[in-house]
């Protein structure tokens, strides 16, 4: 692909392979609360998109309703966005990704938008392996309606008002693994380095990426009795590994240091290097990953990093055997059967 936009870097600003500066990937000013975890995620999306040299015009951003769903306005203004209705972001991403398979799709949702009202669409989008990065900005609380529990809130956790959550939480990551997702990750908005590496790997992945980012709500869920406060998450965050991402390049052959580093190669030739911190965690072992996540959750810990990876599954446009060019721009000559073909159809009905 080529880009026809000539980037106009500030004199000293560094540029990426396409000649763009980081400024070319920013969006409008955030209107979220000062210190919101979501803004840190937005910042890493911008960084990762810049570092991955994404073509901005190919990026599409989808969201539902909620604080998280406002954020597509805050990054990559060169791309198109669709802020839809509550819990329905996955179907919006599905239709657009089928209409144009050359798009790079980023969906931003929240724990309320995805794990309650949108559970049905989340489940089925993952099952279909639609090509998109599905980010759940997870704070355990409904921020935009001023602080009700969401379905990812831990059982027994407290609201600011003192109300206690009586129900078990739903974990998007184990659920995604169960559904056959081939790229499941969890991160923390307070760990930009890890989030950046995961996002860059996610941009190179072809199917659905489920990325649950614990993102504390500074206004409604950051008190001492919360299990989603900055302090609590920081104290209970257990990064699994040091992640590296090496984008495929036809010119440079990158040497991966030998040793304890595991390499996962994507169909496009990009590579993820995984250097274990947490002993014995194997991100290509589906059942082992499930077991480890469940055990850590029982202890009240957040395992973060690349929880499960299997880059071989075909995304939806491949499953449907679609033509390579965007369906949206196919011409009438290819779409409309001929008069002789209509005649043949009519004859069969006589």
């Amino acid at each position: 692909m080529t880009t026809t936009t000539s980037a106009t870097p500030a004199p000293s600003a560094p540029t990426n392979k396409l000649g763009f500066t980081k400024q070319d990937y920013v969006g409008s000013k955030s209107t979220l609360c000062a210190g919101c975890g979501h803004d840190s995620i937005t910042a890493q999306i911008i960084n990762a998109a810049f570092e991955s040299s994404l073509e901005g015009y190919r990026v599409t951003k989808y969201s539902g309703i909620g604080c998280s769903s406002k954020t597509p306005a805050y990054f990559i203004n060169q791309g198109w966005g669709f802020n839809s209705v509550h819990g329905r972001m996955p179907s919006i991403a599905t239709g657009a990704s089928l209409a144009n398979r050359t798009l790079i799709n980023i969906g931003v949702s929240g724990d309320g938008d995805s794990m309650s009202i949108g559970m049905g669409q989340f489940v089925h989008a993952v099952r279909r392996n639609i090509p998109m990065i599905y980010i759940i900005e997870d704070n355990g609380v409904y921020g935009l309606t001023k602080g009700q529990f969401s379905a990812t809130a831990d059982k027994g956790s407290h609201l600011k008002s003192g109300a206690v959550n009586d129900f078990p939480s739903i974990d998007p990551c184990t659920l995604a693994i169960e559904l056959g997702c081939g790229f499941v990750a969890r991160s923390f908005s307070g760990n930009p380095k890890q989030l950046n590496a995961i996002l860059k790997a996610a941009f190179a992945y072809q199917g659905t990426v489920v990325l649950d980012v614990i993102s504390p709500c500074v206004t409604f869920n950051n008190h001492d009795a919360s299990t989603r406060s900055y302090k609590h998450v920081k104290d209970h965050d257990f990064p699994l590994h040091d992640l590296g991402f090496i984008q495929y390049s036809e010119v440079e052959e990158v040497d991966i240091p030998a040793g304890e580093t595991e390499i996962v190669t994507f169909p496009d030739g990009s590579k993820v290097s995984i250097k274990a911190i947490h002993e014995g965690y194997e991100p290509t072992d589906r059942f082992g990953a499930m077991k480890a996540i469940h055990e850590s959750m029982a202890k009240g810990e957040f395992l973060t990093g690349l929880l499960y990876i299997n880059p071989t599954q075909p995304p939806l446009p491949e499953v449907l055997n679609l033509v390579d060019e965007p369906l949206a721009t196919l011409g009438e000559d290819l779409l409309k059967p001929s008069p002789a073909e209509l005649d043949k159809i009519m004859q069969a009905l006589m």
Partner: protein
Amino acid sequence: MTAALAAPSPVGGAKTRINDFSIQVATVNGSGSQTANTVLLRAIFQMGVFVSGKNLFPSNIAGLPTWFTIRASAKGYVARKASNEMLILMNPETAKEDIAKADPGALVIYDEPLQLDKLRSDLAYTPVPFQKLVTASCPEPKLHKLVKNMIYVGVAARLLGIDMEEVKKAIAKQLKGKAKAIELNQTACVAGYDWAMENLEDQDHIKVVRDNKTQGLIIIDGNEACALGALFAGVTVVGWYPITPASSLVETFIEYAEEYRKDPKTGKSTVAIVQMEDELASAGVVLSAGWAGARSMTSTAGPGVSLMSEFIGLGYYVEAPGVFFNVARTGPSTGLPTRTQQSDVELCAKCSHGDTLHVNLYPGNMEECFQFAYDAFDLAERFQTPIFVVTDLDLGMQNWSSKPFAYPSKPYDRGKVLNQQQLAEVKDWGRYKDVDGDGIPYRTLPGTPGGKGAYLTRGSGHNAYAQYSEKPEDYLEVMDRLKRKYETAKSHVPGPVFRNQGSDKGVLAFGSSDPAVIEAQDILAEGGLKTDYLRLRALPFTAEVDAFVKEKKVVYVVEQNRDGQMANLFRETYPEHATKFKSVLHYDGHAIDAKSVVDQITAFEQK
């Protein structure tokens, strides 16, 4: 064999009805009767006689009563006729009730063991030993149940005077290439025919006489016609969810797409079809695919439209195109899911919360199902909005004869989409700016290179530049422009069709009511009441509709729902004429018939 009772002459010595009668067949669903009934219908059609069929089936896979009505009409009337001249009773569960409801003088063919002939003395009975005949003609016991129905086709063919060669041809057509099944069914059918030749006296009550009225016509249902319209319109993304009576629209489309929508060079598909998890997701796929530049559609029925309504409001407000077929059924709720009604008129006209107005198309026959399905994609892209094509179970799932469809040679109208070059030339592009004064803004598609034209589509308040806004003036600008856009649609939607007899009394109907209204209009005229008939084909109402409403003293609005929903739309649109609109209603789940229309209009006239 107890075939002693031969078919007698018509009771009361009435004149023979040639090519002008109805047959009702009562069977059990899942017994293969649909094939037998379609063969009988097709055989009459092949005899050159206008014929229509109504399948009255239960919401069930096997074991419940089902009725199929076949109407032959030399005059070409194809509406359901409430009275039947021949009954074929195969279902022990309903036989007694069917006899009780029979019209006096009807010819009754029935399964001999049912012993129905003592129930009423004003019917002409023909008992047939179906079990004996099927045992003799079909060697495989497990197929007896399926083949049994072919025997009544043979018996009826003999009594009606249908050429057996036409019946055999109809079987071959219906069972397309399945040689063994064709032979089995033809043998059973001939066994019934031969038995009737040998054991029954001929009757002169009702007869089929060869004619040439159906030469060159096709038989099709509305769902298939709509599917073909979508195929030729180049639909590229389909998101759908199964629901009776709409499923066969997409399912038929899938069959055609297999053959006609593969890239000849690569064999890859030029259409994406996804069965979604529900109607909400289907609507999301349709609107976002349309937003991204595809031609997109779904097919659903009333309950599905209810589920989609949140998204349809979004589509209206953010101006995303998409085609929504509503094959309406009897509501509310699950209602009678296998019966017909026109009770989603108001739902589709204003689907969603807030102020929303939608373009609706109402095809009234098979050619229009095809043409309007084709046109709907142009309208969706021209007006950047959800378009409803509203049919119903009667149009969608019943067999209709039709002229073959004309090739839609009009090139696609892809609407106001700016490409990279055009964008480069535009100085001050705003996604929702009304540049041309017609209420239709210019849009761009995601993935357009060049660094211009990207925007964020949002269901929340926005200004002409697609920026978030809660300002009253910005809100009003968008909402008032949307109203202007709807006004512009008046000159793009199909106008009404008239059938005028030179009267100041108007009859207004739409969709599947058309055949019953035409027949009713003739009956009323014979009785001295002339009417002018306007068949509405779209929302918004066009200038011709305005004129009709203004000039008529009274307008009988015929529709198949309880509340007179279309009449309500008229009263709302033309408040100064509100008292002119009188509702003629039919809503019991059966397709409307001419007699109901005649009776109600006559009653109004006598007031």
